[in-house]
């Protein structure tokens, strides 16, 4: 989502009014930055059931940190620092909670179930035909949106090894899809 400088400046001015205790300005600001924060979170949290909880946590942290905005500084970096850090904290708490509440043997191996991802049949077939190791790398990185570090940790290999597997997977996938198209 792109926002121009004028938008950020307007939010910065609203934030100054929020610091002065202006309820109406706060309502406007939260309604305007809410979608930005929500999109930011959705892009980084892959478990849909956690997104709303994380959003709540981020807004609460934003509220507690509102005094720490320096009006002379740009609002964007401040907002995203608050969002990123509270998101990481919220995910940390949730990971511990999830580990306590859900026995891991009951959890599906997410990387082995691309059919659950609602993918196009052709892509699904091409994915299934990949060697297991390369398929897992492609699914985690390109379909589930994991970062390199997260995916490497999930599989239990180094980032470099993951890059190699993913690259091989992309090449094989491209070849399969092109073959299908030409048939």
């Amino acid at each position, binding site marked *: 989502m792109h926002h121009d400088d004028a938008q950020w400046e307007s939010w910065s001015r609203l934030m100054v009014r929020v610091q002065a205790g202006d309820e109406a300005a706060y309502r406007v600001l939260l309604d305007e930055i809410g979608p930005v924060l929500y999109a930011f979170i959705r892009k980084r949290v892959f478990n*849909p059931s956690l997104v709303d909880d994380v959003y709540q946590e981020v807004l609460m942290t934003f509220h507690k940190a509102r005094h720490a905005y*320096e009006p002379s500084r740009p609002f964007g970096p401040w*907002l995203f620092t608050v969002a990123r850090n509270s998101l990481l904290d919220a995910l940390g708490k949730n990971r511990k909670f999830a580990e306590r509440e859900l026995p891991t043997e009951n959890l599906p191996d997410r990387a082995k179930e691309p059919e659950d991802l609602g993918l196009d049949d052709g892509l699904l077939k091409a994915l299934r035909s990949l060697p297991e190791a390369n398929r897992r790398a492609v699914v985690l990185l390109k379909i589930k949106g994991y970062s390199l570090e997260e995916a490497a940790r999930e599989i239990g290999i180094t980032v470099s090894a993951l890059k190699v597997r993913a690259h091989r997977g992309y090449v094989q996938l491209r070849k399969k899809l092109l073959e299908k198209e030409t048939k």
Partner: protein
Amino acid sequence: MKRTPSPKTRGGMPSRHQSLVGELTRGLKPVQPVWPAWVQWLVWLAQAVVVTAIALAILRPQDGLRAALAETSHSVFLCMTFLASALAAWGAIAVSLPGRRLPSWTKVGAWALLAGLLAIPVIFFPMTQGAGNFWSELGGCCDCIYIGAAVGLVPWIGMGFLLSRNASFHPAWTGAWAGTSSFLLGTAVIQLHCPSWEMHHVMVGHLMPVALMTLLATWAGTKWFARWRK
């Protein structure tokens, strides 16, 4: 495993957005914005000058300080101590304010200064024959250790109050930078007071307390600088 998506309102926002907005805006109180980082650093500087002046007025500078500082390695060591303290203070302030990144030159500069502070005594300061036994050194350095730690404690407490008003997402780092800054100031004061420039004494009596007290300050920082989130 299909997951039921949570109910969404207009624009794809979660339904709890409106209730959260209502909850957060209701009875909103004005807050005192943080001071700009450079103002906080100037407050630290003023505090450092006052603490150094008062400590030296009480402890008295060493006899022959002018002659000691005529030695280049001594004056460089002292300047580097003050400089590292000032840089670490900036680091503590920057790391405790969201949206401020600690420039890499600050980190590199601080580490280079700290490495220099360890290297200069080893390379340039005189070594007394027979000295070097850690425990015997420690016994002879107790006064310097206590005084250095006590002097550093004053700016650390002042800085702690200053930084606790910010909103640090990295309380341990904030504590570490603040501890390094404050206890290096203690080292600078003790170096101006204590007439010994002997290498082992400087390492054990003047620099070791910085490391120990910074560890404590880091631990304390995890508690103190995380309180704003409670």
